Structure formats: C-alpha cells, structure tokens
C-alpha cells in the first residue's frame, strides 16, 4: 500500500493525512452533539439517548458514515505510522545537542505520541460502549413507542458513576485537545490553504475547536458523576 497510487509520494501521504484528520474532526462534532443528550436528567436522557443509539446503529446513511469513520481512524493511524517510519529514516544519525523548543511548538513535534494516546483511549472507549452495543449482550430497555433496544444509556451511566473511569475519560481529552491544537490548522496548510485573508480564521477556529470539543466531551462524565 505504501507504494500504491494513493500513497506514492510524501505530499500525497500528507493530503490523505489531512483529509482523514479533518473528516475525524467533523465526526467529533457530530459525536459530541449527539452525546450532549447525556447532560439531560437521567429520566429524560434514558429514552432520548437510547432512541438516538438505535437510530445511529440502524439508519443506512449513518451506517455508511460510521464505516467511513472506522476506516478514517485506521487509515489516519496507518498513514501516521508510515510517515513516522520514513521521517525517522531521513535522519539516521541524531544530533548530540538539539534545541527544537527554539523553533517549534512541542505539540507539533509529538503528534505521533499524542495520536497513540488517543488510539489507546479509543480502544478502551470502543470496548466499553461500541462493543457492548454491537457484540456483547447487555440489558434491554423499552422505548416510549414500545421498541425493545439495548440499554446503552445505562451502560454509559454506570461507567460514568465509576470515579477511575471518569478520571480516565477526562484525562484522555488532554492529548485529544493537544493533537487537535496542531492538527486542525496543519491540515489546511497541507492542502495548500494558506492566505493572509483567512489564516487567522483557520488558526482561531483550530484553537477554539481544540479547546471546546475536548471540554465538551470531558463535561459529560463529570456532569453525570457529580450531578446525577
């Protein structure tokens, strides 16, 4: 695959890295918007969230989007590893003394480490909820219209009543925010979108995105733990 048409040169690898990254940013927005229902009081949230979970796992257009999301996560990680291996090969002998802090932000230099942290979190996160919804047998719940569905809400609720789990969730939003703080704007540069007219807009949006989205995700377990 490394030598295929889609990944044959350094720039093409970057275009796909940026495209899959921005697609995952859009996914994050959608995921957060849907999950904000968990902020409702449990009695309301249980029905709303379970109905939403049913829609998200059965509606055909959403299914296509979810497969695209799985693919993007795997591809983004694969392309990242490929780029990292090539980049390490490009400097076989390291400097005895290097001072990278003089010329670049550390988040931009540790994207691979931050990305790996996010991937580890994703495995834990998918195992907890996604695998439960798709593969494990979990308790069921009758929606307002009588449909029997898997009770994903209670799975989430119980997990977010567990302090170590809440701490893990909140802490794991930090590498996400740091990864986004470089990645969001960097994707536009990779696509050649760099212009005095809109550079500020891109970097401000990137900063806002990297702060607000992880904060939103971190707020959900905190609210559930402390308020409900």
């Amino acid at each position, binding site marked *: 695959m490394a030598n295929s048409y889609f990944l044959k*040169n*350094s*720039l*093409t*690898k*970057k*275009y796909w890295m940026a495209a899959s990254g921005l697609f995952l940013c859009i996914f994050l927005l959608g995921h957060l918007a849907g999950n904000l229902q968990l902020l409702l009081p449990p009695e309301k949230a249980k029905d709303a969230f379970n109905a939403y979970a049913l829609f998200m796992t059965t509606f055909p257009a959403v299914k296509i989007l979810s497969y695209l999301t799985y693919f993007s996560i795997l591809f983004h990680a694969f392309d990242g590893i490929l*780029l990292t291996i*090539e*980049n390490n*090969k*490009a*400097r*076989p*002998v*390291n*400097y*005895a*003394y*290097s*001072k*990278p802090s*003089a*010329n*670049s*932000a550390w988040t*931009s*230099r540790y*994207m691979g480490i931050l990305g790996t942290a996010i991937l580890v979190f994703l495995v834990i996160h998918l195992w907890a909820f996604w695998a439960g919804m798709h593969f494990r047998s979990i308790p069921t719940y009758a929606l307002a219209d009588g449909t029997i569905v898997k009770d994903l809400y209670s799975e989430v609720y119980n997990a977010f009543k567990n302090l170590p789990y809440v701490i893990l969730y909140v802490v794991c939003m930090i590498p996400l925010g740091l990864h986004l703080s*470089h990645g969001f704007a*960097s994707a536009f*540069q*990779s*696509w*050649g*979108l*760099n212009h005095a007219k809109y550079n500020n807009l891109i970097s401000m949006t990137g900063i806002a995105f990297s702060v607000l989205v992880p904060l939103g995700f971190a707020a959900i377990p905190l609210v559930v733990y402390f308020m409900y």
Partner: protein
Amino acid sequence: MKLTLKIWRQSGPEDKGAMKTYPVEGIDGDMSFLEMMDVLNEQLIEQGEEPVAFDHDCREGICGMCSMYINGQAHGPKRGVTTCQLHMRSFKDGDTIYIEPWRSKAFPVVKDLVVDRSSFDRIIQSGGFVSVNTSGNTIDANATPIEKENADKAFDAATCIGCGACVASCKNASAMLFVSAKVSQLSLLPQGDPERKSRALNMVNQMDEEGFGNCTNTGACSVECPKEISLENIARMNREFLKASVSKE
C-alpha cells in the same frame, strides 16, 4: 574570551565519527563564528593536529555554504543569519558550544562539519529552471508584464540560498521549504508558467527519491531559515503539486 568547543570529528564518509572537546582562548566578541573556527584551526595546526574541516565561502551571508549546527540550532541562536554572520558577542566567556554537521540521510557527511548537499542540485536539475530560447532572440525579461505583488513574492522565494538549514532544523529532515521556495519562485512568474506542472511533480519526486523526510508543519524550517523564507511557499507547492497530479496530461 575562553570557550570549550565540542565538535563533531569524522575523518571521512565511512568513519563512524565522534564529538571531541577543544578548549579555545583569545576569542574576541567582534569575531565572526567562522573566524573563531579559524583561530581553533590555527591552534590545532600548531599542535600538529588535523584542523576541523568546515564549509565556507563568501563570509557575507549570501552563499549558504557555512553549514553548522550550533548549540542545537542551525547557524546558531540568532534569527535570519548564516554562521558567518553570527558573531562571538552572542556567546559568553566560559561557554560550552556544540558544533555539529547538518544531519540528514540526504546530506551525508564528507568530513567533520562538511556535508554533501548535491541532493539539492539534483532537485534543481529535475525542474528548478525555465526553458528559454537563448539562440539570439531572447526576450527582455522586463518586456513581460508581471504583477508587482507576484514579482515581490517570487523575489522573496528567490532569496533562498540553498544552505540546507531547513533540512537540518526539521525534525523529519524534510526539504519542503527549499523545494517550495524554488517551485514558488518560478511558478509565480509568467516565464515559469509553461512548465509549472512538470516542475512541481518532478521536483517533489526527486526530493522523495533523495531520502528527505515528510513535512509535519512544525514550522521549524522557516524560523531557522537565514533568509526567513515563509511557510506560504510550502502551501503554494502543495497546491501546485495537487493541481499538477490531477491534471497533468
């Protein structure tokens, strides 16, 4: 002032090489860094030791030869200068200074601090030119109308001296800033327009072939560039390459 120098010594391309420590005395703040190296070498010659090999030529900041990675930064701690324009007043008495060659697979060490940068020449040969007829009917460059803004941007890109500080500073040893400056300089001008697609494709492919790393947009290259070439050029090359790869016949 008195200094302790830790310098990379490597007798030839096949030698493993190592950092060696040299004390040096009688350094004046008004000396350039290269003059300090000259003092060290005279001292070494007097002691019957092999002087440190380093590249240098114009010593006025325009040739790009003086490739030295000083205290963890290409051309040392100052912004927008080459090593020859770095003066010893930037250091203090008693300082320890690390001096290393550019580190990149595509810039193999020839000896000590001297690296072979002919990979840059091969990138230029692959497309960093305009094919003009020079058989006696050459058109006067000034006869071709060029938008002022584009002329300025092309000039800014053309100030790249091909020193390789961008590669040396990049954590991925990527040559994107150099290649993009050359692609930009020519694609912004009407004379470079006819070959813009093949130029972008060929120069990027040659860059990859030489073993340079990939760009991760850290921006270190532009900060360390003695000519302060802008990252705008990398974005422009990304556009040029994308357009060329989807439309080249």
